[in-house]
């Protein structure tokens, strides 16, 4: 490193020292024990061996074929020189021995999930990965089981049944293990499922608590310690009172997204999914507590605060996106906040101790909401873009939102948040949704298409203190992969046509890219190998909701296929076929 560069870097570090100090209480050990790397979900690695100067020489170190070709959304874990990869259905768990050349398979664990579960997975039969804790790997199977596998031997320790696919539910999310609880949530907002988040005892697999997203307070685990910041959220039994009849029982709100944990406050943070059906005229009322951010105690699941991002959601804006926990100086004082890029294209900065919304500015093009009233917390929607038994056109963002599940990352080095997002709009025709258990309960014909500019995706750098975009890189397809940002000043992400890219975290300049065999929708990770070298790993294998045209072999001539995504992705088959290979890169 030259003299001037080290000076610049030194200045950057000094400037950001407070932020750095707050985040990095977990020392960098070169491992990746959970999908988001750490409890704060920063997906930031302090490894800096690969940096802006040498990333141009990055090469493939080894590859591994999973043998499966549905969407690969998982984050590979690296613990104790072993890499753990979870595949889409049939949800195999591979343990790869990183100490041997070519990382051979140490063992494979097969949970044998029901093949019929593939019939209730809304958005490809993906799995977002596992979590490591105390010598075990924990992950979910599509057919409603959570398993604990011994990380050394690959033997099943316990397998708990969480639900029944005949009610339309499935599980795709990566668990979080906090305070001895394996925290998992169900999917199925498109199938009239009753959503929940549950905490299992990590040692035995017993269900310690289950918090539903709708229903009476005792089901939502709202008790005497519940102190929502806003007045409107304080009445009793809002989980039934804001729904007609018994529709909350089939109302959605699953916990299929990301969970963060603050050990000091002893709170887990997560959001609930969309209410069902998509045709909101069939469910008048605010539909609490769908599209809601919750703070709960990990041990018993009791709710401490909640904030509903999108009351009476009309565009499928699930609240499940990640919550990155950082301490920022806002308005002169240091605040413990969470950064939540919501589906409604607004970046929420929320005080994570109390649930107060500090700001909610758009990070992507949107025309469905006007503003968020910071006094009452209520979002003001645009009536012309409200849906129901009618056809509404030019709704931006489309149902996958400004950003869907694909996780962003935060670099304490630059102080910026890196958001992989979508640029899509949609037309929405509401039709009668008919509830038949185990089948879709949607009630909408949708067609999506590119947003303003014609590109369908973007990766941008966002300044959370000043609430603005610093730089953005346009992508042809939605940026559906996860991101990882390193102390080497690099941001890594993958595109749906198969490129794995490294860009300069400060200015977005493309520094390196490699064309993998299939589109990338997985979460890249970085780790230190047994030889002390830094490696990058990412799964290549297109699919997910955005890639269903390829992974499901859909007929894009029907634009409403894949809940409208087919219309926006009809050209994807020209750019990629199915795949399922893990790529690992290193410096020569």
């Amino acid at each position, binding site marked *: 490193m030259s003299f001037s560069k080290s000076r610049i870097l030194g200045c950057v570090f000094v400037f950001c020292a407070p932020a750095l100090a707050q985040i990095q209480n977990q020392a960098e050990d070169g491992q990746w024990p959970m999908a988001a790397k750490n409890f704060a979900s920063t997906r930031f690695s302090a490894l800096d061996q690969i940096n802006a100067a040498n990333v141009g020489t990055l090469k493939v170190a080894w590859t591994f074929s999973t043998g499966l070709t549905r969407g690969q959304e998982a984050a590979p874990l690296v613990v104790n020189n072993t890499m753990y990869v979870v595949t889409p259905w049939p949800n195999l768990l591979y343990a790869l021995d990183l100490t041997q050349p070519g990382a051979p398979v140490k063992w494979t664990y097969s949970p044998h999930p029901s093949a019929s579960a593939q019939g209730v997975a809304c958005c490809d039969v993906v799995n977002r990965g596992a979590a490591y804790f105390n010598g075990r790997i924990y992950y979910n199977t599509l057919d409603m089981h959570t398993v604990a596998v011994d990380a050394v031997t690959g033997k099943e320790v316990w397998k708990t049944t969480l639900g029944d696919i005949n009610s339309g539910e499935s599980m795709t999310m990566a668990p979080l293990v906090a305070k001895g609880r394996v925290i998992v949530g169900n999917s199925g907002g498109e199938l*009239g499922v009753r959503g929940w988040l549950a905490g299992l005892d990590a040692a035995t697999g017993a269900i310690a608590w289950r918090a539903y997203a709708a229903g009476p307070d005792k089901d939502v685990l709202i008790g005497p310690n519940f102190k929502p910041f806003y007045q409107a959220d304080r009445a009793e039994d809002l989980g*039934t*009172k*804001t*729904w*007609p*009849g*018994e*529709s909350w*029982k*089939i109302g959605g709100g699953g916990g299929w997204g990301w969970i963060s944990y603050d050990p000091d406050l002893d709170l887990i943070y997560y959001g609930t999914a969309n209410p069902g059906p998509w045709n909101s005229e*069939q*469910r*008048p*009322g*605010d539909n609490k507590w769908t599209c809601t951010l919750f703070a709960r105690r990990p041990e018993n699941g009791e709710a401490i605060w909640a904030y509903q991002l999108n009351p009476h959601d009309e565009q499928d804006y699930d609240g499940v996106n990640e919550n990155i926990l950082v301490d920022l100086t806002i308005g002169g004082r240091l605040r413990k906040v969470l950064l939540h890029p919501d589906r409604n294209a607004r970046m929420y900065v929320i005080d994570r101790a109390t649930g107060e919304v500090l700001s909610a500015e758009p990070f992507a093009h949107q025309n469905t909401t006007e503003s968020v009233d910071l006094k009452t917390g209520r979002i003001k929607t645009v009536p012309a873009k409200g849906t129901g*038994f*009618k*056809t509404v056109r030019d709704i931006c963002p489309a149902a996958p939102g400004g950003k869907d599940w694909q996780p962003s990352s935060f670099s304490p080095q630059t102080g910026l948040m890196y958001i992989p997002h979508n640029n899509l709009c949609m037309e929405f025709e509401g039709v*009668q*949704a*008919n*509830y*038949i*258990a185990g089948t879709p309960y949607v009630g909408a014909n949708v067609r999506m298409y590119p947003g303003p500019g014609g590109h369908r995706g973007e990766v941008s750098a966002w300044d959370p203190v000043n609430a603005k975009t610093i730089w953005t890189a346009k992508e042809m397809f939605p940026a559906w992969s996860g991101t990882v940002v390193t102390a080497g000043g690099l941001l890594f992400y993958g595109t749906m046509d198969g490129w794995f890219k490294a860009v300069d975290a400060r200015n977005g300049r493309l520094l390196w890219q490699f064309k993998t065999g299939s589109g990338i929708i997985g979460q890249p990770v970085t780790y230190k190998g047994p030889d002390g070298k830094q490696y990058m790993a990412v799964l290549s294998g297109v699919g997910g909701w955005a890639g269903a045209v390829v992974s499901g072999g859909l007929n894009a001539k029907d634009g409403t296929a894949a809940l409208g995504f087919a219309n926006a992705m009809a050209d994807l088959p020209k750019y990629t076929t199915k795949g399922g290979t893990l790529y690992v890169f290193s410096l020569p």
Partner: protein
Amino acid sequence: MIHQSAIDAAGRQAAQIQGLFWFFIVLLGGIFLIVVALMLGPLFCRHRGLDREPLEQTHTPSIETERKLTHRVGWATGLTVLILLGLVVLSVSTGRSISGGNPPANALTVEIVGNQWWWYIRYLNEDASRVLVTANEMHIPIGRPIVIRGSSHDVIHSFWIPNLHGKRDLIPSHTTTEWFQADHEGRYRGQCAEFCGLQHAHMALWVVAETPAQFDSWMDLQLRPAPAPSDAVKQKGQRIFLDHACVLCHAIRGTTAAAEQAPDLTHLASRSTIGAGTLPNTRGNLADWIADPQNSKPGNHMATVALSREDMPPLLTYLESLK
């Protein structure tokens, strides 16, 4: 009280229509009688002129007679025009008075969606938990304006309760509004008034106008989910309902059946008819309906489900318990 009659008004809007109707009948009937009399008159009374004027002169009327005739025809025409204009003004103003203006603030809003061939009824409410979905039979309180927001799921229907108001079309992808008020208690039968397919003739709706207290207690009862089956027979009946095709289209709140393509059955036993007014709601008719829906209402969209002879009685007992 005639249950389905536009000339037996039970509300103020219907009274206005009824008033207009009788006014037209009386006035135009009177005019009709006068015209008939004027036509028949000359046939029976002898015209004086004929006696006095020679024959060769009568086929050409005299100038005086001409003038008299022009005078009289002129007056008659002028009078007719005035009467017709007057009737137009009266008609238009009645129409505007019954459909124009905003209903008072305490109106009860009910959404009516026409389906082939039944009525989906949803009572709206600011409080989402008091929104009620039912079918084919509507209760309303007297003395309170009722706003109807109408639409259709398939083809054009028309909402018509003759005792209470005129017709209002229900058009797919479009909302039409009317409001009315019942001033007398009673049971009024309504009818689809726009040809909508095979069973247009069997698409009737019952509106029960009752005191506000009775209405409130009806609403409270309807909002409750169906009671759990209280004995083994009803439990078996519920099991049969849930195991067959019924759950693909019908809902019974309080069970896992929540489909919305067909009438809500949560309080089926509280309704006086089945099949949208096609048959009285009795055990025998219910059995006939379930065993062969195409018998009483051929072409209707209810599937013919093969039920065994052992399954029908417990199912009927269960359905009868859904009060």
